[in-house]
């Protein structure tokens, strides 16, 4: 339960950061999709259940704080995670393919949910690459959370309190 709470709060921070701070700095096209990047980094750690939860919560928060129909972003993000899962399970277990799926999902997400960017612009490509890059930033964080914090005695003690 605790780890889902942590994922939930991390998603709140990421949504706020993505929709406020980074949006002002980078604009709609170059803005990375931190929610999907976080979910895919969980997927790379083989935490598929947590990745689905993260994509669902993150998408829902984006919808609730924005003007898209509630549940639409969640659905799109969940589909992206399921595609990633499918590729990983039945086709190719490379993380490169996961990043490609992530970038494509981000592009489609931007195209149909938000800013309708032109294909192939430098700003859009930099935004997609930034999203892929963020996976590597989140990966060590998630690795720490799942291999150290969530399994340590200290964390369990906190849980008991």
């Amino acid at each position: 339960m605790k780890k889902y709470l942590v994922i939930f709060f991390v998603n709140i921070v990421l949504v706020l950061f993505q929709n406020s701070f980074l949006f002002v700095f980078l604009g709609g096209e170059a803005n990375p999709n931190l929610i999907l990047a976080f979910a895919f980094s969980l997927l790379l750690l083989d935490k598929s259940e947590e990745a689905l939860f993260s994509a669902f919560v993150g998408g829902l928060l984006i919808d609730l704080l924005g003007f898209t129909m509630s549940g639409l972003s969640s659905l799109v993000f969940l589909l992206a995670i399921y595609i990633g899962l499918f590729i990983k399970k039945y086709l190719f277990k490379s993380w490169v393919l996961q990043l490609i799926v992530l970038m494509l999902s981000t592009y489609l997400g931007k195209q149909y949910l938000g800013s309708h960017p032109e294909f192939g612009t430098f700003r859009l490509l930099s935004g997609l690459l930034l999203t892929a890059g963020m996976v590597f930033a989140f990966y060590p964080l998630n690795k720490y959370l799942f291999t150290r914090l969530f399994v340590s005695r200290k964390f369990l003690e906190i849980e008991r309190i």
Partner: protein
Amino acid sequence: MRYILISLFILILGFFELTNPVKSAVAWVFTPFQFGLKQIADSSIETMKFFGSLNKVRQNNLFLLEKTAELESKIVELKNTEEENRALREQLEIENTFERNLLLANIMGNAQDLTGSTFVLDRGSSHGVKAGDNVIRRNYLVGIVREVSAQRSLADYVTSPSSSIAVVDLDEPSRTEGLAEGQYGSSIVMKRVLPNENIGVGDMIVTSGKDGVYLPGLIIGKVTRIVEVPTEPLKSAYLETIIDLTKLSKVFILTSPAL
């Protein structure tokens, strides 16, 4: 799969705008945070822009300083040329009766001479300057070259105590003669004037050429005061240079024509 189903359920609720109260509540909670983050981002951008423009302003400032220095250098160059032109024009107006060549030279001062009675010229033996060459401006005597190196020469001002010039009163019909000696500054004393010879205040004193050092006809100065001591047999007269020697920057050296 349950997340997909929940999402679809929320989507249906959203389609019928049933999620609006939740949306409002979430917006109410998170709007201050969003607004705060936006403000931080805005102020960060402004700060970055400020520092970005600061660098640009600095670059512009450096460029302008460089340009100013360049222009100032050009102004100095032009002033020098102007001064040179003026000196040449003045000198051309005066008929050259000295049978010597006129060599334009710049006065560079002499930092080692604290009395100010000597000056350095930027012309030397490689330009044909020799010790003893007279230094003039128009037809005023400025001094005489004492030492010569290849590129420079050291000259005594006419007001130098070491200069001794045979002079004559141009305004007296009797052509009163004497010996002019420098007294530092702009003052010169005309000594050895015979008691029976006339000399008046305001008289123009020029070189006589009898000393064989200075060319004849060069203006030394005007008489400002006459001193007659009863116990001394000879009279003296104080002279003042007409031109301010210390303010001269361009002069002409009367060099001997090449043989």
